[in-house]
């Protein structure tokens, strides 16, 4: 099966032979693609069924919670940390980003952009929390407790003195430009690095 477009971008961008921690690795789909190109990939995942599936695929995955268990990894244990579609579900995204850049000098962080025009319109005209392709769950049962926009994220890392080495913005499965991202990106992927 083809990788989700945001995962494909990350899989492409990670150099082979890198050491990588995939935080919120699900059933190990991205790790499998990474290991196929020689990356030493390990995972952290909260859902035991996903962990079981990933271990059954031969991946190294630890059941744990990104809010707490990143503290168990030593400084610079990895070359890259990956947090894909998970930032908005964490209790304190700012601290999680800090942890990612403690255990690795660089991190990929991807999240759905809450300022996409469809979300803005739904809120503006409908007056209700939007339910979209990337945010498919109603407000009361969504795991996304910290909705974030491309601009919010840029502000956060700017305030923390974190550098951006690359960014990709997806509208549907197609890339969109940096300038249009705030409105047009459904999904953003940042490669950030310690300042």
């Amino acid at each position, binding site marked *: 099966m083809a990788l989700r477009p945001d995962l494909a971008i990350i899989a492409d961008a990670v150099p082979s032979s890198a050491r990588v921690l995939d935080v919120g690795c699900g059933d190990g789909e991205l790790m499998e693609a990474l290991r196929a190109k020689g990356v*030493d990939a*390990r995972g952290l995942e909260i859902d*035991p*069924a996903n*962990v*079981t*599936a*990933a*271990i*059954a*695929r*031969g*991946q*190294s*995955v*630890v*059941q*744990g919670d990104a809010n707490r268990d990143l503290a*168990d*990894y*030593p400084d610079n*244990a990895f070359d890259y940390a990956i947090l894909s579609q998970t930032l908005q579900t964490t209790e304190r995204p700012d601290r999680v980003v800090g942890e990612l850049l403690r255990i690795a000098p660089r991190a990929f962080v991807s999240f759905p952009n809450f300022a996409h025009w469809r979300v803005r319109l739904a809120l503006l005209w409908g007056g209700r929390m939007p339910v979209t392709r990337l945010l498919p769950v109603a407000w009361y049962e969504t795991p996304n407790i910290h909705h974030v926009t491309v601009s919010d994220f840029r502000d956060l890392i700017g305030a923390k003195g974190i550098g951006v080495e690359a960014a990709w913005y997806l509208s549907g499965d197609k890339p969109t430009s940096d300038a249009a991202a705030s409105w047009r990106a459904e999904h953003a992927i940042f490669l950030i690095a310690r300042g």
Partner: protein
Amino acid sequence: MASALHQIQHQSVTIPAPLPLDSGQSLPSVTIAWQSYGALNADRSNAILLCHALTGDQYVASDHPATGKPGWWARMVGPGKPIDTDRFHVICANVLGSCMGSSGPATPDPVTGAPLGMAFPVITIGDMVRAQAMLLDHLGIDRLHAVVGGSMGGMQTLAWAAHYPERLGTALVIASAARHSAQNIAFHEVGRQAIMADPDWQDGNYYDKFCMPTKGLAVARMAAHITYLSEAGLTEKFGRRLQARDIKSFGFDADFQIESYLRHQGLAFTDRFDANAYLYITRAMDYFDLAEPHDGRLAGAFAKAKDVRFTLVSFDTDWLYPTAESRRIVQALQSVGAAASFVELSAPFGHDSFLLDVPALDRIVAGALGAGF
């Protein structure tokens, strides 16, 4: 009973080299009984060492010679099973100190020919592992694809990774811990005191006597058996149901099904286990603490094991070796940079879950052993 047990012939080898023990004593030679399943491949790279639990034995997937019952992990080990004997050469050795053919308290004194009894030196998990390494040397197997074990078998697996990290690729540790807790030691002490309080124990010199300390050993087993089950499991299986009667007897018969079940488990155990072996092996487990030689830092034990791939599994209803103990191991492994997998599985059977039907465990075992092979 024990005499019948000790008349069983086992496949074994006596290695004439001395085995130095953690206690400072040493065994002049060591006998190790073992079973193997599946063929060893030409480059000797497909061997898996399976480590058994406290009252387990080498008859992993074959009928038990004393009870005739199927092997204790027959559901996991065999052709096409998660530990696939069409692919792997699986070796299981009776642990040092046990009673199924390996050196232990029933071993004859080389001078007098009488069973050693309590003159057998106290052994440790580390000593068991050293004896297994001697067996592998004898078999000409330098490196294991994997070491696998549940409960005390998991402790041996961890000790393998700590002492011989270059000799294994994968360590699979199920429902285990890197140390015995005060509670673990406490339950074992109850069992040992039950054995030693039995007048037929006779300071361990019962092998040539008519009476064996079966009552004490049965009580030890009853107490231990409770620790292998979950409260919810016991409630579901037995509740407060009465055994073969409609009303309480107002006496001390086994009125409740749980009493009858435990009495049966205790008694049946004495057909297949030796009381002195139970003392020695429980002691070895109580002495187990991998962090102790490293000033209490467990990571120190794994300093050279960062190239071993670890998989740890705990069960949510296991209160004997709870998830926190597995997590402690995972944290130590992460701090040395070893590749570690860990999952807490949900299963209703308490500590015994590792022996029972838990499909997720089968998938994890197959995946952990298949990786990189």
